[in-house]
């Protein structure tokens, strides 16, 4: 059974492996790609020049070197990236000892597995499209290997067509399995560390540069669909982590917050109902519109009203939420909270402290207005490329550079407020969003990341103050692209130029949104919801399995019917016109008997229709000549067509 394979088989295998490798290029280190290509080329040359296959002792050191390479590159064998690289390079190394059917099969099955691994890295529509070619090629390679002898192998076109046909015929059952196969919520065991790398989002602290870096990323943070009225753009503050604690240049969530009583919120006005689809970012934040009241399951509300998931968001989440845009939050401020919200490190930023102290005697509201006025009237610039700040960053920013991004404005403002004795804190999150008319939803990107301040006022509680709005009202009213000058590097999609590109992008995004909702987001919950909507009943596992098996049985039955149903033989041109002639004769009640030759039938027909005897015999003879001649006879065919056109059976005859 361990037959050797032909050069033709090898070519198919190498080409399909090359394509599989090609789809994985972004996921592999360069040296793994180079090594795989050289092993493949080596194998090809071995065959081309009939060199001897390398001995096992020659391959062992190579294997060892590769293992060391993997360990060095990935600091271990485990994890998604390391296993993929190992699998790819070993699969291509295996080629060097691949000669029998067994080796070929092993490599092909491994390659199928590698195609499946593609989706560990991303699951976009493009990746889905990318998976089709290698699947067809691998299937074609299997077909090619089924043709055992070189002489009997079919051409490329036949093989590819059959492979595509087989895969196409596999689609119906695949769809049923996709919809009905009971989805088990993962993970079954701990995921490797790097399983979720590459996700971006808000951090749990704020340093200069954090948000402006995020702003360069056009990745989508979340999408929102409002159920009824959409709030004004300047009300679209998506609340994330609230930062209390200042230390040097960084603001963090204070650990001493734990144990604080939840702030009391009073809401008024109309509730804003919306559905969020949050992209995975590997952290706990579940962004919600200020101020959240109804929060999803599996999440909790912190005392300062950020919504936190019970475990890091590693899959796309979709949840319904309700917020109110007019609210009063935390009317009474506890002693601990007061202390925490006035905390600043002593001895830093003397100029700022001095400035704040000069406001003594003003009311809290006046202090705020004075500060905002300063931002407005002095030459502050809103820019993605702020200069570096010295050891007293707030001083340096407020009195010297005056160029900064929202994080600079928020931190300096809160610092100023605290120094002036007004309790204040930083809220990070996103601001704004882009409306997509195609799907009637808003897209909020990482580039919409924002930081603002909340100050506590007696009688009013925590009030949102956005110092960025004082410097650059456009940022809040129109989004980041209007607020920056052209030298700032914004991601392509956040830029105002190329309106057609933007439009195309919005179309594409609505397709993506549907893809995310229906294909990628189809998990155990969505499955139950969908099936409930479809059947009108709550379905349990048993129903799903029975339904799945019976629908698959029906599909298989139908497929079998169409596969086995005899295809009509294609008629050649002569047969086609002869069939017309037979139709005419049928009107006179004449049909050829089983096994009757053309001439015998003609003789019988001529007897029945004596008027047309010569014509009938002529047709029969010419038809016979055409049928039994080896080469095509276009002239004879034309003549036959003419004769048959002349032939008519009248009803009376």
């Amino acid at each position, binding site marked *: 059974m361990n037959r050797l394979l032909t050069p033709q088989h090898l070519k198919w295998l190498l080409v399909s492996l090359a394509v599989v490798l090609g789809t994985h290029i972004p996921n592999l280190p360069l040296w793994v790609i180079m090594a795989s290509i050289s092993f493949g080329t080596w194998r090809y040359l071995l065959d081309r020049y009939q060199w001897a296959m390398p001995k096992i002792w020659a391959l062992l050191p190579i294997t060892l070197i590769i293992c060391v390479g993997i360990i060095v590159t990935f600091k271990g064998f485990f994890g998604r990236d390391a296993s993929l690289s190992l699998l790819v390079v070993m699969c291509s190394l295996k080629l060097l000892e691949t000669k029998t059917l067994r080796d070929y*099969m*092993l490599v092909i*099955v*491994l390659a*199928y*597995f590698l*195609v*499946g*691994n*593609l*989706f*560990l890295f991303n*699951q976009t529509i493009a*990746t*889905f499209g990318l*998976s089709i070619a290698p*699947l067809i090629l691998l*299937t074609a390679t*299997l*077909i090619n*290997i*089924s*043709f*055992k002898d070189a002489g*009997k192998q*079919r051409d490329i076109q036949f093989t590819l067509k*059959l492979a595509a046909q*087989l*895969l196409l*015929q*596999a*689609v*119906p*059952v*695949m769809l049923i*399995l*996709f919809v009905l*196969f009971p*989805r*088990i*919520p*993962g*993970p*079954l*065991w701990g*995921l490797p560390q790097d*399983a979720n790398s590459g996700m971006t989002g808000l951090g749990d602290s704020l340093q200069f540069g954090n948000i402006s870096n995020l702003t360069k990323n056009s990745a989508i943070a979340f999408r929102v669909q409002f159920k009824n009225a959409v709030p004004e753009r300047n009300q679209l503050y998506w609340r994330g982590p609230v930062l209390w604690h200042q230390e040097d240049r960084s603001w963090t969530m204070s650990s001493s917050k734990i144990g604080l009583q939840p702030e009391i919120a009073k809401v008024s006005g109309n509730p804003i109902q919306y559905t969020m689809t949050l992209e995975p970012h590997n952290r706990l934040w579940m962004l919600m519109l200020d101020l959240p009241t109804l929060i999803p399951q599996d999440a909790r509300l912190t005392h300062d009203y950020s919504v936190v998931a019970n475990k890091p968001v590693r899959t796309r989440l979709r949840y319904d939420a309700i917020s109110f845009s007019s609210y009063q939050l935390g009317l009474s401020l506890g002693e601990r909270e007061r202390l925490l919200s006035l905390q600043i490190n002593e001895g830093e930023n003397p100029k700022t402290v001095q400035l704040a102290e000069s406001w003594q005697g003003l009311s809290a509201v006046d202090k705020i207005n004075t500060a905002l006025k300063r931002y407005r009237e002095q030459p502050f610039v809103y820019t993605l490329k702020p200069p570096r700040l010295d050891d007293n960053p707030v001083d340096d920013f407020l009195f010297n550079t005056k160029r900064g991004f929202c994080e600079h404005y928020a931190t300096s403002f809160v610092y100023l407020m605290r120094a002036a004795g007004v309790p204040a804190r930083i809220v990070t999150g996103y601001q704004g969003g882009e409306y997509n008319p195609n799907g009637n939803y808003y897209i909020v990107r990482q580039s919409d990341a924002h930081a603002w301040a909340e100050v506590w006022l007696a009688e009013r509680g925590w009030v949102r103050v956005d110092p960025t709005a004082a410097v650059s009202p456009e940022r809040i009213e129109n989004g980041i692209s209007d607020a920056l000058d052209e030298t700032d590097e914004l991601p392509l999609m956040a830029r105002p130029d190329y309106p057609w590109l933007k439009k195309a992008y919005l179309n594409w995004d609505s397709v993506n949104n549907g893809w995310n909702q229906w*294909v*990628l*987001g189809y*998990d155990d919950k969505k499955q139950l919801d969908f099936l409930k909507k479809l059947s009108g009943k709550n379905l349990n596992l048993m129903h799903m399995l029975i339904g799945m098996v019976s629908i698959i049985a029906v599909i*298989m039955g139908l*497929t*079998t019917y169409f*596969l*086995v149903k*005899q*295809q*009509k*033989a294609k008629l050649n041109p002569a047969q086609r016109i002869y069939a017309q002639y037979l139709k005419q004769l049928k009107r006179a009640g004449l049909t050829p008997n089983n096994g009757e030759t053309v001439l015998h039938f003609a003789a019988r027909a001529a007897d029945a229709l004596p008027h047309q005897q010569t014509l009938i015999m002529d047709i029969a003879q010419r038809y016979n000549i055409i049928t039994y001649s080896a080469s095509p006879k276009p002239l004879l065919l034309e003549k036959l067509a003419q004769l048959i056109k002349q032939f008519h059976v009248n009803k009376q005859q």
Partner: protein
Amino acid sequence: MLSKIWPFTFWKISYWQQWFRVAKSANNVAILNPRQIYIVPTRWGLLYATMLIGLLIGSINYSLSLGYYVTFLLASLGNIAMLHTWRNLLHLQIAVSNASPVFAGDTATIVLKISETKNRPRYVVAAYFNRQAEVINDIKANDVQLFDIPLTTIKRGLHSLPRLTIYTEFPLSLLHAWAVVDNPFQLLVYPKPAESIYQNNLSADADVQGSSQLTKGDDDFNGHKNYQVGDSPSRVDWKASSRGIGMYTKLYSGAGIHTLWLDWLDTTGDIETRISQLTRWIIDAHATQQTYGLRLPDTELAPNNTEAHYHQALTTLALLS
């Protein structure tokens, strides 16, 4: 042998063969209908299935919707491949076209006629009596393909063909579909001829029995045969031998003059040995175009030297009980 011990017997397909439905031939033609075609995964199919389980577990663990897509598409592909593999044998018509008699121990060639009538080409269809000697062919749509299938013979006589197995693994080699065909065709196997050395006994001298000498008349030179020990030196073609091309004995024909009687009584040993000796003599006599008759304990074939006579003589020996 391990496979003879229960439960290892179940590992062998030959054990299960007895329970399988067999396609019986009517008027020499067996049509493979759905119920007679069996299908199991090949070991590559099992490997593929294992890979799919790996993909499924990965998809669950990482909650990969598109991982599910690949898993399900490939699973469904296996399923579709099953239908195609099964269909590749479906409704084939199998008939034995002919099979020439051979001597026991030789390999007979059974010419099988497999017809396609469903307007669908069939690829890589294999047929065998013995797995080691399978024949693989494609069959064109609405066409007949001949398969020359070797069959090793052991004993003389008229034997029913063993069961023929037809299988295919097309298109993906992941599944093995097969059917077992019974055909009433009977293969005639001539007795195994004895080694030429037995000829010595009787051709040592023409006058011992007169009747049993293998040489022909002396009249006309008729050709050569390989020299065998015991041939008269006067008949050796010394000219040829001096040219170094080997020893040949010159043959002369003198039809009707010396009729050769191959007699049971001239042979020694047990029945099979005697039959073997007679077979050898018939072959040699036929090869040298002599006229010979065959005398057996209860039958006698009149002397003749035709092809038909030769086969009749061998057939008589083959069927002798």
